[in-house]
């Protein structure tokens, strides 16, 4: 059994390595169709794969995350070893990765939707892998429902495109989409926005994300948060940038606003949630928000024909996509390690892990630093790029209304950064430092080696992408030159900022040198002064675990000072009324609701088949 499992994981890792190589090739600027297969001869139902530069980054991300998750899964599997269908988890992950690759490589509507649906269904199944735990099934269903709503909107967008272009081929769309009547373009844009932002977790369509990510096995959460939600970004960029070249100004405005609101709100929610995986899930929303914010700014600049600025913003969005994907994958692995060691991820029940599992905790701390945008890690590089893009835009439009918008975008960025630092500090300070609050945390031990290797690989990669950020951004910029039909060099004035290949490494070396010098000087001057260990000072009394600051305690000032920031607005004003309505309706259909997982799966597949048929028929009627 163990052998099977290692074999499956190795296979996955190899496949992912291949995907990474493919992505790297795409980043060379290659763009070609490399595989075509007729599902039904002489029909438009083709499976067509094609690589192109934009997908390169996402493929690399998928590959790297996949490799990490596969390695991680070998050790993490112990957590699930007692299950009968343990091997199914490995296979599920393999299929999940294949499905995501299919989405990224798809060259026509059918391939894309097939991959998209496969991705959704497999991820749904993986999310409810632990379906015996109370509440998990409900959360999984929220995911399934939301994802199907999203798919429906995507189908509508594609159908409209098909109606006007008589083609299902993406290349055709790219060629003629921007010639469609503006109203039609807008309809397509809105449908794509709803469809993709549901998957990307943009507010207010994010509700499934903080429910689904925490309950999935951790390496599945990794792939979902690190990669899957990015495939939605890829799809969205394909539609609005590659096909429509940015579209109307209000498109970008809408996207930027949604992104900014998502970023701040989700970051505030992340700063006050108590489950580590839930915090990470909210943080995925806020990062996607920032990425969409930059995308929106890029769209606006495209629409205003300011291509260098647009490219800069796009580059920032993509660079953050890469960095977020990387550290979030690894962070979920870290959260999984905590679950593995303590069987809880509630901050209020952890504490003291830095002493009981130091190797894991140091890797985790690096990832948290990256997440909180501390130099010189990847998260910092990504944020600097976004700052550069937004401040350059603000400077460029200083005397116009767009300048004000850019300043607001900058404010959103800073608030999100500060809230993220809050969340990261909480996770580490409450979860890993201090004394254990519960027996479970006290008895924590280091996790299996493969899990630690995956964690450390993630930590190293995020450090490398921080230090070598300038090189990677340059490669990305080169690959993207010429997308949307425009040649766009990156503004050269930024050579001193994140695009300077020396700054961040210099800072790193300088700080390291200062630290070591301080240490050496003190050693030389004072010799080895003695160090003594005594209990933490509690004003002359004894200490109990109940005196540890709790996760809720650390976020309470936020809740008190800005209650609005910490209220789940979408849930209160959108979903709860909608849910109430659905519930009222659903009571009439109680008969078909058996509560059995298998019957839900049947419904799900039925929906997909139905949707595909609609696509086929809808395409054929015209």
């Amino acid at each position, binding site marked *: 059994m163990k052998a099977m499992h290692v074999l499956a994981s190795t296979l996955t890792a190899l496949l992912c390595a291949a995907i990474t190589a493919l992505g790297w090739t795409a980043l060379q600027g290659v763009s070609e169709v490399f595989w075509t297969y007729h599902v039904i001869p002489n029909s438009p139902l083709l499976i067509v794969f094609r690589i192109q530069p934009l997908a390169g980054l996402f493929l690399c991300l998928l590959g790297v995350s996949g490799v990490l998750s596969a390695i991680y899964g070998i050790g993490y599997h112990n957590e699930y070893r007692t299950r009968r269908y343990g091997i199914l988890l490995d296979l599920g992950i393999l299929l999940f990765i294949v499905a995501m690759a299919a989405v990224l490589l798809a060259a026509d509507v059918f391939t894309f939707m097939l991959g998209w649906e496969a991705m959704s269904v497999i991820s749904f199944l993986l999310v409810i892998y632990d379906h015996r735990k109370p509440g998990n099934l409900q959360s999984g269903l929220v995911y399934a429902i939301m994802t199907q709503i999203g798919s429906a909107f995507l189908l509508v967008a594609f159908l409209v495109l098909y109606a006007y272009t008589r083609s299902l081929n993406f290349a055709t769309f790219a060629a003629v989409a921007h010639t469609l009547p503006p109203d039609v373009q807008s309809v397509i844009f809105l449908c794509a926005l709803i469809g993709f932002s549901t998957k990307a977790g943009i507010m207010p369509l994010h509700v499934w994300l903080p429910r689904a990510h925490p309950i999935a096995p951790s390496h599945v959460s990794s792939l979902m948060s690190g990669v899957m939600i990015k495939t939605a970004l890829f799809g969205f960029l394909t539609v609005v940038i590659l096909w429509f070249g940015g579209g109307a100004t209000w498109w970008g405005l809408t996207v930027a606003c949604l992104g900014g609101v998502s970023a701040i709100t989700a970051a505030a929610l992340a700063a006050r949630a108590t489950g580590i995986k839930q915090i990470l899930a909210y943080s995925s929303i806020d990062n996607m928000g920032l990425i969409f914010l930059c995308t929106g700014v890029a769209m606006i600049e495209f629409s205003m024909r300011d291509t260098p600025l647009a490219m800069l913003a796009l580059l920032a969005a993509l660079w953050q996509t890469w960095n977020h994907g990387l550290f979030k994958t690894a962070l979920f692995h870290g959260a999984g390690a905590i679950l593995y060691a303590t069987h809880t991820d509630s901050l209020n029940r952890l504490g003291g892990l830095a002493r009981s599992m130091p190797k894991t905790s140091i890797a985790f701390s690096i990832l948290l630093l990256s997440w909180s945008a501390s130099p010189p890690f990847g998260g910092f590089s990504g944020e600097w790029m976004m700052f550069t893009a937004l401040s350059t835009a603000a400077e460029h439009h200083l005397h116009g209304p767009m300048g004000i918008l850019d300043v607001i975008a900058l404010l959103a960025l800073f608030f999100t950064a500060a809230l993220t630092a809050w969340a990261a500090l909480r996770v580490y300070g409450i979860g890993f430092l201090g004394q254990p609050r519960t027996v479970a945390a006290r008895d924590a031990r280091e996790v299996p080696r493969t899990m630690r290797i995956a964690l450390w690989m993630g930590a190293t990669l995020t450090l490398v992408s921080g230090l070598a950020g300038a090189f990677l951004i340059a490669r990305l910029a080169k690959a993207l030159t010429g997308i949307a039909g425009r040649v766009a060099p990156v503004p050269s004035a930024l050579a001193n900022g994140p695009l300077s290949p020396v700054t961040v490494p210099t800072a790193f070396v300088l700080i390291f040198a200062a630290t070591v010098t301080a240490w050496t000087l003190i050693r030389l001057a004072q010799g080895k002064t003695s160090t*003594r260990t005594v209990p933490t000072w509690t004003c*002359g009394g004894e200490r109990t675990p109940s005196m540890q600051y709790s996760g809720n305690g650390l976020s309470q000032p936020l809740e008190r000072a800005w209650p609005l920031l910490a209220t789940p607005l979408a849930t209160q004003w959108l979903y709860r009324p909608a849910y109430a309505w659905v519930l009222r309706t659903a009571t009439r259909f109680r008969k078909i609701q058996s509560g059995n997982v298998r019957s839900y799966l049947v419904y799900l597949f039925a929906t997909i088949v139905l949707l595909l048929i609609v696509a086929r028929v809808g395409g054929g009627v015209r």
Partner: protein
Amino acid sequence: MWSLIRQRLTTPIATEPLEELFSHVATEEPDPLLVQWKQNIRRGPFYGSLHIRHVDTGSCNACEWELTALLNPIYDAQRLGIDFVASPRHADVLVVTGGVTRNLAQALELTYEATPAPKAVLAIGACACGTGLLGQTYAQRGTALDSGIPILVTVAGCPPSPPEILRGLLNIMTILNGGAATHGHATTAI
């Protein structure tokens, strides 16, 4: 607000010179403690930087008020670099007041343990010095001298006046700087 700022900027210095303060206490002229302090202010790590942590071991609050008085502008212990600190980790001197009650014996030990070496303990007040009115009862030891914590300097008085306490602190500053062992050093009375 402006009147307050003006008032503050024109407040005269109320601090009394050390010579004057000590004239009631010191027997010799010139006061050797002051001479020593002035000569060595630049030497030795504890001159001009002595941080105190107060440990009440069961006093009647009079010693506390006199300790607090050290910080008022008239005595201004800060001019000697003497200051009270918020954590025993930052302290050099523990000031013990009171006859070590049963309920506080453990707290005294914990505080001593929590203070980094080199450190010294100053016992002030009759209760801590073992000459208190009450002496030993079921609830207190009656002295800090045999509490297991090495007392370096004692300042008697019920309560000792602020200048006397200040002299005790200066004395401790000198002993700490002299590299004198902080454990088992003979107790010096002021």
